[in-house]
């Protein structure tokens, strides 16, 4: 790889584009399908067609008696935002205690966190369901908030721990000598420096919670249902639904894209701050 062979790099570039497009194509097709008539999407797939917004009108109006997009979106937003905030509030002190001033047996603690992810969630669903029923929180947003928090917490602790470890020790010591309390050290020194990491962690929590389907379907089939469940509600047993489902999927993807875009800006700003020395 010392000298750049133009033919070789051209072929590599071509291959990269090919693989990239291969992965992107289904997404592209989905977006495209959302603007088609059902017939164009199903029986005789077309690349060129008369675009229509009818499918978006369909999903916006929804069917009588079924979950509306507005409700699903509100439920999802609640579950995602509240659980992510809870995760960060809990994970920041935990990560601090595992990195900057490690507690005794911090390795075991770290392992414990990740070990909670060893159990397949299916294996735990029945006890979870029974507990939720006993507590009378089945079909509420609350049950999802609690479970999404628990689901994302281990990952967040692990991620934040590694970001906190990157914070130069002298800065924390300087803050200590400058008289900052523990809270002051965390809020004015550690978090601003670890901000890109915090943004990345929050983004992952948002994505995982937003896309979560299994728990939502098991514990929350009616009132508190979330966007993924609303997407599946566009599957119809009568007639074609591919175009409509594509439109719904596209709508469901947008918030995550926006979150990613916002987080990315934050991450880049944080990286540009740099220059600790």
């Amino acid at each position: 790889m010392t000298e750049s062979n133009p033919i070789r790099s051209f072929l590599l570039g071509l291959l990269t584009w090919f693989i990239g497009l291969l992965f992107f194509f289904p997404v592209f097709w989905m977006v495209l399908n959302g603007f088609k008539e059902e017939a164009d999407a199903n029986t005789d797939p077309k690349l060129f067609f008369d675009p229509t917004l009818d499918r978006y009108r369909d999903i916006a109006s929804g069917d009588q008696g079924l979950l509306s997009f507005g409700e699903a979106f509100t439920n999802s937003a609640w579950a995602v935002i509240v659980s992510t905030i809870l995760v960060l509030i809990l994970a920041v002190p935990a990560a601090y205690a595992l990195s900057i001033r490690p507690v005794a047996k911090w390795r075991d603690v770290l392992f414990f966190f990740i070990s909670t992810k060893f159990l397949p969630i299916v294996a735990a669903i029945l006890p979870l369901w029974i507990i939720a029923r006993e507590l009378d929180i089945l079909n509420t947003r609350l049950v999802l908030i609690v479970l999404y928090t628990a689901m994302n917490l281990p990952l967040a602790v692990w991620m934040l721990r590694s970001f906190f470890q990157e914070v130069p020790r002298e800065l924390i010591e300087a803050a200590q000598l400058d008289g900052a309390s523990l809270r002051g050290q965390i809020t004015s020194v550690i978090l601003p420096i670890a901000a890109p990491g915090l943004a990345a962690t929050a983004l992952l929590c948002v994505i995982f919670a937003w896309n979560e389907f299994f728990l939502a379907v098991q514990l929350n089939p009616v009132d508190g249902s979330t966007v993924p469940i609303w997407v599946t509600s566009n599957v119809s047993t009568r007639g074609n639904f591919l175009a409509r489902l594509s439109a719904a999927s596209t709508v469901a993807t947008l918030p995550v894209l926006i979150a990613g875009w916002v987080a990315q800006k934050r991450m880049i700003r944080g990286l540009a701050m740099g220059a600790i020395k």
Partner: protein
Amino acid sequence: MAQVRYDEATRIYPGTDIAAVDRLDLDIADGEFLVVVGPSGSGKSTALRMLAGLEFIDNGSIHIGERDVTLVPPKERDIAMVFQNYALYPQMSVAANMGFALKQQGIPKEERQRRVAEAARILDLEPYLERKPKNLSGGQRQRVAMGRAIVREPQVFLMDEPLSNLDAKLRVQTRTQLADLQADLGVTTVYVTHDQVEAMTLGDRVAVLESGKLQQCASPREMYSRPANRFVAGFIGSPAMNLLEVDGGDGSGVALGSMTVPLDGEVGRSVGAHPSVTLGVRPEHLALVPSDGDRTLPGRVSVVEDLGSEAFVHIDVEHRGETTQIVVRGEGESDVRRDDNVAIGLGGPIHLFGPGGERLN
């Protein structure tokens, strides 16, 4: 402002057996500038961090003023520290960096601004107050770190190699400014460095550490002219003192190659008590002279380092049947050349150290 006292202060890092700082006893007067110097790994930073409260003190105690601070957390010790890499808060402006400690103390905004502006004026930082640290040069960052310390008007300044990230010229310049500033402010200062020129020029007193143990604490002058032991003798001074093993003999004198160095009665008796002692002579206390029997030592020049104002001549001599090198300071612009045969004469005090390194004269 306050005096500082280390009392048998010891630090043993967890997981190690040997003390990084071993029963350190130091008394630092109010307003004094104490420089701690020593080779790498000798425990200088550890000693400083113990005073800052950043390292646990396993044994002994530390006092600031009348207060025993052994178990007091850093933020209650009222000390300011300048770190080697400055440790400026990257997300804060220069002004915010300097005002951070005052803000923590709950000092009102106007007063904060006044004190930051004053420090910025002293340190020539006024044009940069709104900049972020990453947009400053190394020297400016260093001054911000100083500014952050002086706005606090603390009891003690701690500095851990604050000049080592500057280039040579700036280091010399900043060194003088630092000495000036400290004298003006009169704040007790503990300054760690491995650069003995800094130690000798800055310190009211210098403390030499080796392997966690205090070797000597004295004024630079005394440290230079009467090193307490062999280690200090070899460590302080550049180029280093010539140190040679010689036979104790009967105590009337010691033999350096074919040259005899006579000894006084009392010194002679303590030298005569050992079969072998170390003779130390600084390069400037030797001279190239005409050959004169056993009063001079013949040798052959191997290297001449001519610095213009002075020249250091490295000379191979025969001593105890082996060839060893002796450094002699000569005139600058000298016409001594490699392979010249010369004679070395003694023109100043000598130092004698016993087998344990202790000073004998």
